[in-house]
C-alpha cells in the first residue's frame, strides 16, 4: 500500500473506533493501594544447616537475611513482552515479617521499579520463592536486560520451595499450587469472595492502565501480599518437615523426601533414621516399594551389607512378582557378601525370565562350578 493511503486508512479506522467507544475520563484517581504491611504472626525461620541448604540447591543461603519474592505479571507466556507489574518482597525485621510491594504505575517506569527492587534486595542472604527458578527470577532477569541494567541483585542463593514441596507432598493427591498448599498443608484459608483468581490478574492491570482507575488492583495487591506471607509460612513449615522429620513428618512420603534430602546433604545416619521410621508408617505398596529400595541402597552405600541384604530380602518377600528383590539380593550376595550360592539361589528364584537374568544365572553357575573345581 502507498504510505499516504496507509495513513488515511489508519486514521479512518482510529476515528471509527473512537466513535464506537466514547472518550473516557483521562483524570487519574489517586493510586490508593496498600503497598507495605507487617505480619507478626509469622516467626522468622531457624538458621539453616549449610549442608541442607546445599542439598536444596541454595548453597550459601543465609535465612536470617532472606528475601521472599513473588511477582504478578502481565501474562504467563514469558518472552520479552511480559512485564512484572507488581513485585512483593518479604523480609523479617525485628522478628516481624514485613512485605513491601512495588507497583509499576506505568510501563515507562520500569527502570525505576527495578532500581527500587535492587535496594530491597541489597544484602539479601537468599531469595526465597515458590516456583521462582523457572518463572519469577528468569522473568526479572529479562526485565533488567531490557532496561539495560545489571541483574546482580538476583545473583545470590535461591531457595525455590516448589521442588521440595513436590517431593514432600507426593503422597497426597494434590496439585502443588501455592494456594492448595496454603489450604491443605498450612490450613490458612483465603476468602474466595475477596481473592482474585490468578487468571484475572493480567486483565486487571490492563484495565488500570486503560482507565487510570486503580480500584481493581487493590485485590491484586492483597493477593500478592498473601502469596508472599504464605511463602514465608511455607518456608518454616517445609524446613521443619525436612529438618526434623521424626517430629514433624505426617506420612511415609515426607520421611522419604527428608531422607533423600539428608542423604544428599551428606548425613546418611539421619537419612536412615527417617527411612526406618517411614517403613514403620508405610502401608501402601508404592510407598513401601520406594522406602525399601531407598533404605537398602543407602545401607549398601554405608557399607552395611547385611542390613542391605535383609532389606532386599524383605523387598523380595513383599513383592514376589518383581525381579528386583531377587536380582538385587543376588547382586549383593555376589559382589559384596561373596556368597555365590546364595546369589545363584536368589537369581534362580526370580519370577520373570529375561536375557539379563539368564546371563546373570549363567555367570553365577560358571563361577560356582569354578569354585568347586578349585
Amino acid at each position, binding site marked *: *500500500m502507498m*504510505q499516504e493511503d*496507509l*495513513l488515511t*486508512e*489508519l*486514521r479512518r*479506522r*482510529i476515528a471509527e*473506533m*473512537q466513535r464506537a*467507544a466514547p472518550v473516557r475520563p483521562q483524570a487519574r484517581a489517586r493510586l490508593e493501594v496498600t503497598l507495605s504491611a507487617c505480619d507478626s504472626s509469622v516467626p522468622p525461620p531457624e538458621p539453616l544447616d549449610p549442608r541442607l541448604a546445599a542439598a536444596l540447591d541454595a548453597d550459601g543461603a543465609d535465612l536470617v537475611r532472606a528475601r521472599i519474592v513473588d511477582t504478578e505479571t*502481565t*501474562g504467563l*507466556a*514469558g*518472552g*520479552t*513482552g511480559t*512485564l512484572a507489574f507488581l513485585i512483593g518482597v518479604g523480609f523479617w525485621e525485628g522478628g516481624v515479617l514485613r512485605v513491601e510491594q512495588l507497583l509499576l504505575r*506505568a*510501563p*515507562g517506569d520500569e527502570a525505576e521499579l527495578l532500581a527500587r527492587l535492587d535496594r530491597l534486595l541489597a544484602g539479601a542472604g537468599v531469595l526465597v520463592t515458590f516456583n521462582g527458578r523457572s518463572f519469577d527470577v528468569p522473568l526479572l*532477569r*529479562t526485565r533488567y*536486560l*531490557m532496561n539495560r541494567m545489571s541483574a546482580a541483585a538476583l545473583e545470590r542463593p535461591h531457595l525455590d520451595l516448589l521442588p521440595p514441596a513436590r517431593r514432600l507432598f507426593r503422597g497426597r493427591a494434590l496439585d502443588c499450587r501455592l494456594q492448595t498448599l496454603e489450604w491443605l498443608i498450612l490450613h490458612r484459608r483465603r476468602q474466595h469472595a475477596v481473592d482474585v483468581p490468578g487468571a484475572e490478574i*493480567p*486483565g486487571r*492491570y*490492563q484495565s488500570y*492502565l*486503560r482507565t487510570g482507575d486503580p480500584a481493581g488492583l487493590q485485590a491484586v495487591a492483597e493477593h500478592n501480599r498473601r502469596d508472599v506471607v504464605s511463602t514465608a509460612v511455607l518456608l518454616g513449615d517445609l524446613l521443619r518437615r525436612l529438618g526434623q522429620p521424626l517430629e514433624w513428618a505426617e506420612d511415609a512420603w515426607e520421611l522419604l523426601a527428608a531422607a533423600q534430602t539428608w542423604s544428599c546433604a551428606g548425613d546418611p545416619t539421619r537419612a536412615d533414621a527417617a527411612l526406618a521410621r517411614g517403613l514403620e508408617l508405610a502401608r501402601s505398596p508404592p510407598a513401601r516399594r520406594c522406602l525399601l529400595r531407598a533404605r537398602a541402597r543407602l545401607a549398601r552405600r554405608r557399607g552395611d551389607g547385611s542390613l542391605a541384604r535383609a532389606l532386599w530380602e524383605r523387598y523380595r518377600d513383599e513383592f514376589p512378582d518383581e525381579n528386583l528383590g531377587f536380582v538385587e539380593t543376588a547382586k549383593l550376595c555376589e559382589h559384596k557378601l561373596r556368597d555365590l550360592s546364595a546369589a545363584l539361589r536368589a537369581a534362580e528364584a526370580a519370577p520373570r525370565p529375561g536375557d539379563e537374568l539368564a546371563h546373570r544365572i549363567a555367570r553365577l553357575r560358571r563361577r560356582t562350578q569354578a569354585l568347586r573345581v578349585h
Partner: protein
Amino acid sequence: MSLARVIASWSAKREIVERRVLPARAARHADWPDWLDGRVRATLAARGIERPFSHQAEAWAALRAGRDVVVATPTASGKSLCYHVPVLDALARDPAARALYLYPTKALARDQIEDVRALAGGIADARIGVAVFDGDTPADERRAVRGRAHIVATNPDMLHSGILPHHDRWAGFLAGLRYLVVDELHTYRGVFGSQVANVLRRLRRVAGFHGAAPRLVAASATIANPGELAAGVLGGAQPPLVVSESGAPSGERVFLVYNPPVVDSALGVRASYLKCAERVARDLAAAGVKTLVFARTRQAVEILVRYLRDHGAAHARGYRAGYLPDRRREVERSLRAGEAPCVVATSALELGIDIGGLDAVVIAGWPGSRAATWQRAGRAGRRGAPSAVVLVVSSEPLDQYVAAEPEYLFGRSPEHARVDPDNLAILLPHIKCAAFELPFAQEESFGPLGADALRAALALLAERGVLHEDRGRFHWIGESYPASQVALRGPLDQNFVVIERATGTVIAEVDRPDAPLYLHPSAIYQLEGRTFQVARLDWEARKAYVDAVDSDHYTDAIDYRKVRVLEVLGEAAAAAWGEVHVSWKVVGFKKIKYHTHENIGYGEVALPEQEMQTRAAWFEAQEGTPPDVALGAAYALHHVAALLLMCDPHDLARVVEDGRRIYLYDKYPGGTGLCERLFEERAQVAARARALVAACACVDGCPSCIGAGRRGKLAVAELLAAFEQAFGGTASALAS
C-alpha cells in the same frame, strides 16, 4: 555416445518444434580482494578455487562498503560464495562475530548448512561453530546453540516465533550479528513474502537494541525484479545492490522444445508427454549422459521412474518431497558422485541443493512460469561443458501455447515477484509482535514504514487496548504472546505418514493438503517405481496404511470445490465482498493404466471435507453470459488483481459458480486483507483486465490474457467492460 551425438540423432524428429542455442559464456574472473583473511583464501584454494568470479568480487566489495546485496545470477554460478566468504572472513577475524542464515524451509536449512560447516571447518585456527536452530532442535541443545554457535541456520517461522520474542536469550548472539543471509529470496513473494519482510524489520530492530546493525545479503533465482523484491523483503534504508551479471562460465546450451506427436489427427490427440519425456531421458541415460528430469507433480515423478525402470534404466532414481531424509541424502550423494545417470525430481531439486552440474535437463511439462523454467534449465551444464535442455510439453493448453509461440518463453523476461509488507492485515499483527519484543520509542520507524504511518498504527493498536502509550512510548500490555497468533504461511498442519502394513515401517510422508489426493482408500501410492495400495486412511491420526501391490494402474483423484457466502461485508452494483466458507473434497478417483494411460475404471471415496473460512470478493455477470466467457474474465481478473494487490497469483484462488458469479478468494484462512482492497479497487481491476485482454498481441486468447485453450477475447473484453462500467469506471474507450 556423447551428448552431441544424442542431439544429432534427434535432428530428424518432427517433434522438436524449436531449437535454440544459448551461446557459451567465458568466465570472467576478478582478483582476490586484499582485505580477505589469508586463512579463508587458503580454504577456498584447497577447494580448487583459484580466483573469484567477477560477480562474487562485486558482491564482496559492496558488502564491505556497507551495502545490502541481492545476488541474482543463474543456478550453479557460485552464488553461495558471495555470502559465505564475507561471513567467514568476519568470523575468522572476530570471535564475537555472528551470522544468521535464513532458509525458507527446515529441510533446506539442514541441507545447506552442511556446506557451510565444511567450509568453516577448513579454516585454520578458528573454531567456527555452525548449527541449525529450528523446531526440531532438542530443548537441551538450544542453549548450546545460542551460546556457542557462530553461524545459526533457521527458517522464518522459527525466527518469528522462537527467536525474536525471546531475544533476551539471544543477547550475546544478536550483539555480534554481522550478517543476515537470506537464501532463496524469490520464495518470499506475495503474502508469505510480505510476512517475512515484517519479520526482518523486527529482526533489524531487535539487533539494533543489542547494538548490532547487520548487513543483509540475499540470493535469488532469476526473476524479473530481484532488486525490487529485495528492497521490499530486506527493507533496508538504502536499496540493496543487485548483482546479476554472472562471471561464471557456461558452456553452449542447446534448448529444445519437444511437442509429442499427434497420434489421432481426427481428434488432435497427442502422445503422452510423460512417455515422450521418458523416451528422451532414456536416450540420454543410455548414452551415459548425466540427466535430471523435472516432473510437475510427485505422481509424475513416480510414473517416470517406473517407466524408465521398465525400459531397462534400472538405476533411475526418484526425488521429491515426502521421501524420508535418508533416501533424499542418498539420491543427492549418488547424483554428485555421478552414480545415478538419471534422476527424476519435482521442484524439490529446483532449490539450491548441491548436486553438482548435469549434462542434460529434461523438463516434463511446462513448469507454470518462465522463472521456474529457467531455474530448472539452470541445472544443466558443468564447468563450461556443453549441455542440453529439453522441454517436453504436455497437451494442456498452456503447454501447447508455449510450443506454438516459443517467444513466450525466450523473448520475455521471467515473471515479477511482489510483496506488500504494508498491507494492514499483515502489518498490524507484526507491529504487535514488535512491540512485545521492544517498546516503540517516540521517533522510531518500522523499516521503510515512515514515522507518521507507524504512529498511526500504534495509536490504533493502543485504541484496541493491546498497546499502552506512556510518555510517547508504546508498550505491549496484552496478555497473550502475539507471535503465537500469527502464522507466516497459513496453517502448517502435521504431515501424514505412509506406513507399510507388512513391516510397520514409515515409507514416506505427504503434506496435509495433498493427503486426500494421494492417500484416499484404494489409491495407488507410488514410491520410486514400486506401487502400494492404500488399505486404510486414519484421518485423525494422520496415518495411511498401505500394502505393496503389483498394480498395472495408478489412480487420479477427482475433487470438488464450493464457495458459500457467510456474511456480506460490502456491496455495490454487480460486486460484493465478505466472509466465505470454502469447502473442498475428494469425491472419487480414476484408474489409469500404466503405459497406455487408458481410463480403466472409477471409484468413489468418502473423505471428510476440508474447509476453510476466508474472505472473498465476487463479481456478478449478466444472466446468459456463456460460462467460458466468465471463466476467461475470471482468469484475467485473477492475474490483474495479483498484480495490483502486489501479491502472488497463488495467494488468491478463483471459482466461477453458476457460470456467472466470479469469486476470487484469499487462500490464507481468515484472509489477509487482499479481498477488501480488491473490492475497493474493483473499477481499476476491471479496467486493467479489459486493457490487458484488448492489448494482448495474441490472435484470440493466450495464457497472458484469458487463459490457455480458450477463445473469444472480444466477448471477454466486453464482459470486463461491463464490469468496469458497473463499478463506476470509464469504459468509454472499449478497444475494438
